[in-house]
């Protein structure tokens, strides 16, 4: 058997310490760059809303949020209005806005629901009571949803490629630092945090999970 096996290779054939360290740094920098810059861009796909909707215009025309996003008598919340509600006014075109034209022709005309991307959409197994927050605790829409009600144009929607939900849920900041850009973040911990501050308890599992 040979005396010179792999474990005892002569020193001159080995890479020196600083070369190894440089490689370590390269790995470190590359991964940090990809983790901080490439990853967020890869994780989210940007989607345009099917129609550029102006909350501002509608607010001027029909009044407050609850004209379209209303509570039903049983206490359930209507959420984004459906075609039936929209076509109450938009059965024919009311302005020369190209988005309205698209809406009337492609959706009202075809009797097709608009596939809105909902910024605050939660998984199906989450129960959220708007009545408890708005009617019970007297909260404002904007506290959680930000100033969307004042916007003239729908901002782009970033969809998480893995979970399929909006970036707004986690928040724009990957570290979840600072104030959220649009109202509040909507992860479970965000709910629990607010509940702890406001009610003294994070709440029970069944309160939000179904």
């Amino acid at each position, binding site marked *: 058997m040979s005396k010179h096996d792999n474990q005892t290779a002569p020193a001159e054939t080995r890479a020196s310490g600083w*070369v*190894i360290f440089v490689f370590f740094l390269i*790995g470190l920098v590359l*991964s940090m760059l990809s*983790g901080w810059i490439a990853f967020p861009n890869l994780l989210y796909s940007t989607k345009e809303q099917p129609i550029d909707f102006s909350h501002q215009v509608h607010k001027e025309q029909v009044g407050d949020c609850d004209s379209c996003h209303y509570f039903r008598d049983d206490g359930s919340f209507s959420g984004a209005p459906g075609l039936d509600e929209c076509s109450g006014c938009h059965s024919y075109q009311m302005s020369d806005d190209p988005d309205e034209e698209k809406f009337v022709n492609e959706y009202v005309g075809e009797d097709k629901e608009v596939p809105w991307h909902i910024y605050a959409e939660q998984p199906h197994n989450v129960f959220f009571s708007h009545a408890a927050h708005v009617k019970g605790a007297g909260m404002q829409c904007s506290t959680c949803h930000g100033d969307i009600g004042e916007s003239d144009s729908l901002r782009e929607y970033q969809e998480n490629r893995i979970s399929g939900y909006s970036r707004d849920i986690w928040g724009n900041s990957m570290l979840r630092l600072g104030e959220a850009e649009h109202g509040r973040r909507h992860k479970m911990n965000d709910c629990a945090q607010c509940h702890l501050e406001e009610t003294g308890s994070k709440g029970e599992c069944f309160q939000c999970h179904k």
Partner: protein
Amino acid sequence: MKIDRRCFLSLVIGGAVGTTLTPVPWKLTDDIAIWSQNWPWTPVPEDGPSKYENTVCAMCQGGCGITVRKIKQRAVKIEGMSGHPVNKGSVCPMGISSLQYLYGPSRVKSPMKRTGKRGEGKWEKISWDDAIAEVSDKLKELRNQEEPHKVACTADSDRNTVGYLFDRFLAAYGSPNFIRTPSSEDANELALYLAQGRNATVGWDIENADFILSFGVPLMDSPDSAGRMFSAYSALDEKAELVQIEPRLSDTAAQSKRWIPAKPGTEGVLALGLAHVIVKDKLYDSDFVKNYSSGFEDSEDEDGNTRKGFKSLLEDYSPASVAETTGIDKAKIITLARDFAGAGRPLAICGRPIVQGSVDEALAIHALNALVGNINKKGGMVAIPEPDYLGWSEMQRDETASKGRQQPRIDGAGTDRFPNARHLLHRLPEEINSAGDKAPLQVLLVAGGNPLYTIPDTEAAKKAFDRIPFIVSFSPFMDETAEYADLILPNHHFLERYEDIPTPRGYAKPVTGLARPVVDPQHDTMHTGDAVISIAKNMDEFIREAFPWDDYRDFLEQTFSDRWKSLEKEVYSVRKDFTPADWEDAFDTPSKKYEFYPTSRQMPPDSERDRLPACRPLEIPGDGDSKELPLLFVPYVSVRIAEGAIANPPFMTKTVDDTVIKEGEVFVEINPETAKENDLSEGDSAVLKTSSAEARVRVHLFEGIMPGLVAMPAGLGHTAFSDYISGKGENAYSLLEAVSDPASGLNTGWGSRASLSRA
């Protein structure tokens, strides 16, 4: 500068360290967790506004009001409709499960024409125009051959509009063969007609009775009219007493205060035994018997012969002899008779499941009610008149139609042999199979029931169906009969259609229910009423003119005329002005009295019997070879198992105990004593043999069944519908044979001689 393996390792380590300093691992973990909690193949029901719509359940003829919860256009839940007079909010498992049929895989999605052999399951989709034309052409051809009477039709009711349209069609076309699907109503209705002279349904005012003597009526066991029975039962006064006469401890027997197991088939004898005691002890309502009844005492007829009265008949039914026949203790019979007659509002009810029933037995039990004077009284037996709205004028008929309509019925009902009977579906196989070369039936329209499943002795029924050249099914589901048809014209599911539902069986007030569409038709189906009208419009002039309506909806609205609006809104209408007729006006018999001796009863020419309801133990097939078949097979019904035309949806099978069905095998119940005699123990696989067929079963030992009996639930063992329904258990009907009651022709084949041996 040397680059070696360690440099790459270092690069990887650097990368790993760097990655932990980025959000990647933490964010990915969270996202993957969310992803793994929301698999794309796990369905997410769409949310939306929730609303409730009332309608009437038509899974059976029970007429329960139901409330359907809808999310947008989807029906998601069925609940009992509170305030509905029939069921008062109660609803049975079958009604709740009916959404599994609405959206389920056993729907027939469009008209279908058979392409392969019968029953092979090869179909071709055709258009509605073609389907209607296909039936019309066939019917026209038959009429041109002057054989319109070779058409028959089965329907679930002859008192609602769809049944009426079929009957009207057959009348205009020239066939006498409208056959109502069999039920326990048949014997009751016939007995009521004979004794009281009225075409009416029997209403049992259970809600107001305080002593209910049930001769094997599956009050709490049958899915048929269960909603009403449950609400009636829970409305009963705490002191009210329910007595159940039945050889097996059924759910009704379990709820009764007294369970009296009589030998099966001897219930009528027991009724007369009770009458014997009541008469002997003079406990009967003498006002009623003396002033409003006839045939109680012996009398002389026109020819001067002495005619035996009911009282004399009862002499043969002394407690001692009845005790021997029924197996019930003599003292128990006497006490029961006295308690019954002594109660404030006693009520005796009859209507055994599975069969039409014996008319003598029904007459005997009705006579008990007459004796205690509860006819048309609160808590008594009430005659419910037929619906008053089906009063369309007679149509003009051509000669072919008149001649055809005069022909004897294919099932023999109303012929010399069975003069009193009206509908005898179970006799079809016998008549067809025994006919000569020429098939006596050319076209069968199946608009109700599922005869290939429910007619006793399925093999014989299949053989008969093979001889019918053209079978049309109107079933919304691919049931056994539809599977064997030549053409399927699928009806809407009841949640997609209008349909009037007449007073449910046994309900003691006239009420009309209206099923109305709650959801849009899910498939390319057509209302059977529309199908009949369309077929009629394709026929000759006279038939066309008998159907002047645009469509079924138009016909329905015109039929109900000024009542339509409120009926559509309320989904039911109760005849407020209805009070049961007083005894003076109640009876339309030749004597204008309640006839213990029904003078209008026609006896078959060779009958040795008298018109009096002399009861003997009911015959069953296979009685000859009691050595080889030492046991008695009796099917039973369970409210968790749909026993008739419609099969158990998965939800209902889910509720059934593992001592009833397990891994596709059905259990028969036997007494441990019987098990010992036959060397069987719990869970054993066994072969159940009857005079007509045999089946592979498993054994469940149950103390609550009379020794010598083998009980098996009816309603399992379907072979059609869908994989979710078929192939579970055995069909109890296939183990039975039809027995035509010699006195009336009605099917009384409640059981069969059987043997049970370890497989």
